[in-house]
């Protein structure tokens, strides 16, 4: 079976008349994704709390450094794998993991320190 169309209705042909893609289905799928998304991020990289900031300040790290570390953890590490719960490893184990994965994920020395500062604060504040 061949389907014909003339120039301008090309997108209309795809999205509407022929029913290859239904806008309502896409909208529903998008809403489900949007609602469920933020929850998984909070579980993998907990938001920075006042307790975490206090721990970081006592170690000479800033809130901004924690923020950068959290963002790096959530963006660079998840390119390959899901985030592990912070509580799963000790601070020393996290240090070894970050060091071990730095080459693989292309982390610079400064970025490693930012991730480590965030993990230290998050782990101690548990």
């Amino acid at each position, binding site marked *: *079976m061949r389907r014909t169309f003339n120039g301008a209705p090309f997108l209309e042909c795809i999205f509407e008349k022929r029913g290859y893609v239904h806008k309502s289905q896409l909208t529903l799928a998008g809403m489900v994704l949007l609602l*469920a*998304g933020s929850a998984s991020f909070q579980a993998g990289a907990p938001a920075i709390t006042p307790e975490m900031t206090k721990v970081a300040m006592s170690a000479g790290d800033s809130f901004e450094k924690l923020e950068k570390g959290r963002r790096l953890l*959530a*963006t660079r590490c*998840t*390119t390959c794998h899901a985030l592990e719960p912070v509580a799963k490893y000790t601070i020393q184990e996290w240090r070894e993991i970050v060091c071990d994965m730095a080459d693989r*994920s*292309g982390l610079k020395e400064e970025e490693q320190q930012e991730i480590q500062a965030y993990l230290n604060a998050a782990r101690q504040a548990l």
Partner: protein
Amino acid sequence: MNLQKTTCAILLGISLLGDVATAGDRRFTYVYETTTGAKGEIEVENFATWKTRREGSGRVNEFDFRHEIEYGVTDRLQAGIYVADWKVADGQAIYKDTAVELIYNMTNPVTDLLGSALYGEVKLGDQLFKLEGKLLLQKNFGPIVLAYNAGIEAEWEGARFGNYDERSGEFMESFGVSYQFSPHFLLGGEFLHELGFDEWQEAGDPVIYAGPNASFRFDRYFVTTTAMVQVTAVTDEADFQWRAIFGMHF
């Protein structure tokens, strides 16, 4: 330099590049993810695709190969070059084309509500010229990753370079889901929908493929593979295809 020497030179070059490569492990083989490599990062990936279809009382098999090098221009913009797309036919390696791709990451699939990226590709061969654009969407839910691509490509073909007398278009969409059982093993599925437009005048029959995929990650390399069957009944398209991507870093 004949074709075999050229192919050997390309493969040698790629293997040497592996010394500086850090592979961004792929979860899918047909679906692109929205994340891009970090600035300055180089990735090397090798594709192998087998397609088979019935023709008369026998079967026609097609073996395609691709060698890709990707480079992180910025933390959001990634450039890639398909050094060579080639196929094996009658025991001979035949060069098909070379392509350049750009992926611009707009939002992150973990930190933002929905990850998104734009994909553009220009492909040039001795018998074809192709432009392709896609919208990439992705969402990570911990170990579960969902990704969706939709795009349009325009292709001009001819008997020789610069003399293209046929033109066609294609709308494609693909969807993938992957679950991480462990950091070393992921399992999921992929779905591919293609709709061709010969001479941009007529839409052909939609072709839909679906099948499982698996990704294995090791210390220095990864292998991701997908096997898909055609769930429609378009006889002049492959009824089965299998693809594997082998990435490595040293």
